[in-house]
């Protein structure tokens, strides 16, 4: 455990994720090998047993998330990690965890798609899948770090949000961040607060499994603690029993949807750089935000008043915050490693008064600061 106690470490994004999971109380990991996420499984396989946890390599990604949900229902915090094709397979159980309200963390290290796509070159093509990948209406929380230190921080946050809101939380890394090494000062990170799900205090017979508390979240009893109840992926009533009563179904579905609305303050993270007086705002997340930061600084040197809006929480989308930041700007540029998935969302938020400009790339290469600078300067960017 020497590495974990060093105050300053050279930490890789994937390793930071695994270490943070342990720090957040994760004691169960189930996964299936896939690049570029495999290091997370490898680190977990080594670190979990000494911490009293369990690691299992499952037969596929569907089974992996299934096992994580099972462990979580039995009272143990669980996580899985994957990449694009595996993330597609996991959608079935992401929907299940949303509906059955089982806390769990899913890490998706994005690689180029669609299909088997570009193993294992960087992309940000799964951001809409993280929101809408599973069928039906459901809440979605997706966090997107842009440095290994932030991977650590957001992994802990992912567990905390998941425990607090009883819902799956997705950590969306791009391949560059996952494989990036960085000097990380562990002193601040080591003391991040850790949250644990509330447990029922009433007598077993009196516990209504899915009756929500004041925050819209029901208190969760682990299997085996005497609170016997039913969990299903069917539409269910407050006892967990299947129902097709429109009123009960509507109440549950709306309550789930509103989890992220009612608790918005605690989960909305974003970063502003030089936006106060900016006439050009660049919207970028993940590793692209690092390039955008450079581009914004270069632009400022040239006398262009540029600023950066970096969403850290991608879902729920920080629409109000973005609209406020863009209010005084005449131009908004979205830079992302896909063919414009978030551009539409940004356009929706800022309205039709100005057209969103795009700096897009989906060819397996990261977007460079120069390319974003060209976009800020209003010059043609020729990479797509």
């Amino acid at each position: 455990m020497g590495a974990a106690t060093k105050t300053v470490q050279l930490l890789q994004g994937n390793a930071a994720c695994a270490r943070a999971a342990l720090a957040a109380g994760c004691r169960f990991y189930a996964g299936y090998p896939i690049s570029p996420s495999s290091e997370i499984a490898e680190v977990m396989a080594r670190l979990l047993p000494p911490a009293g946890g369990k690691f299992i390599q499952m037969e596929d990604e569907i089974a992996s998330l299934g096992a994580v949900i099972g462990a979580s229902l039995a009272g143990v915090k669980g996580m899985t990690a994957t990449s694009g094709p595996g993330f597609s397979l996991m959608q079935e159980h992401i929907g299940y965890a949303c509906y059955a309200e089982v806390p769990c963390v899913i890490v998706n290290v994005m690689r180029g798609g669609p299909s088997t796509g570009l193993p294992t070159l960087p992309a940000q093509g799964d951001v809409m899948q993280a929101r809408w990948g599973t069928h039906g209406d459901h809440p979605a929380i997706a966090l997107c770090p842009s440095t290994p230190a932030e991977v650590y921080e957001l992994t802990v946050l992912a567990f905390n949000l998941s425990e607090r809101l009883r819902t799956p939380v997705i950590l969306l890394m791009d391949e560059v961040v996952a494989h990036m090494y960085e000097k990380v000062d562990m002193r601040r990170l080591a003391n991040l607060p850790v949250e644990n799900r509330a447990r029922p205090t009433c007598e077993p017979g009196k516990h209504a499994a899915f009756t929500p508390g004041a925050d819209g979240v029901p208190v969760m009893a682990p299997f085996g603690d005497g609170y016997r109840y039913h969990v299903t992926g069917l539409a269910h009533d407050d006892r967990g029993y299947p129902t097709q009563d429109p009123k009960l179904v509507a109440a549950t579905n709306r309550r789930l949807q509103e989890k992220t609305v009612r608790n918005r303050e605690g989960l909305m993270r974003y970063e502003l750089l030089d936006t106060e007086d900016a006439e050009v705002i660049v919207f970028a997340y993940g590793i692209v935000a690092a390039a955008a930061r450079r581009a914004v600084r270069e632009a400022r040197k040239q006398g262009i008043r540029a600023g950066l809006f970096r969403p850290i929480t991608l879902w729920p989308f920080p629409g109000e915050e973005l609209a406020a930041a863009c209010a005084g700007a005449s131009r908004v540029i979205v830079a992302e490693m896909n063919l414009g998935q978030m551009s539409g969302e940004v356009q929706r938020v800022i309205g039709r008064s100005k057209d969103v400009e795009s700096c897009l790339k989906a060819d397996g290469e990261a977007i460079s600061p120069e390319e974003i600078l060209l976009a800020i300067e209003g010059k043609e960017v020729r990479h797509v």
Partner: protein
Amino acid sequence: MEPNGTQNVLIVGVGGQGVILASDILGVVCMNRGYQVKKSEVHGMAKRGGVVYSHVRYGAQVLSPTIEPGTSDVLLAFEPAEALRWSKYVKPGGTIIVNSRKRIPPAACQDRRMDAPTRYPQGIEQALRGQVGDVRQFDAEELAVEIGDHRMCNTVLLGALSSVCEFELQDWLGAIAASVKPKTVERNQKAFLAGRNAQFAAMRDSLPSEKCEMSRSVTCLDAPEIAIHDSWCKGCEICVVVCPQACLKMNERNRAEVVKAEACIRCMLCEWMCPDLAVRVQ
């Protein structure tokens, strides 16, 4: 707006009752008469006690495929609780034809009205009469059984529907012949006529009170007690067949009943082989 003269018939029931076939036949009748007809239905969880309904709209011209609440000319309900659930679709002065034979669905969805407790609804007849007025009910299953096949219940009900529709008898019989399996045409037509000529009577509450747990248990001094949970029994007859002492028989409602408790040798087969967990030997 819909053109004048569009007729709306809503056919409802629970899974396995034959709602869809009945509405298919009505559709054929309408088409053969030169009407435009639109049919829209929900089914799928058929055997699982799920709801099945079919909206049939016909006339010179039909635009929307579904019937708005308060506009159906006729509601043909294969089951009383379903009649209650859909009664708000019937227009003022419309007709409700109800099969009085109840089907108790799984507990989770017994009374389908909003805010209702999860049990089979009470006072259905009064509730229906209060809303519409023209409520006609009869035991269609009884007529079907008389013809020799309880599955013909849907055709019996279709016959009852025909008594309030404009079409000729020959239209119906022809559509039936075209829609059912050849060897069942004759029986289906017979069932249809039985329904067409049915006497509508007051609704019979043929079920025992819901409060009764383990009804009709019989106790003898030295013999074990066999209890049959009547509302759980689905009438598969397995217990009757496997009992070596012939303690049980099927009653007129097709439910198992204890007739010779004193002969019981406590072999437990009736309890262990009851798929509905409705039999207990104490």
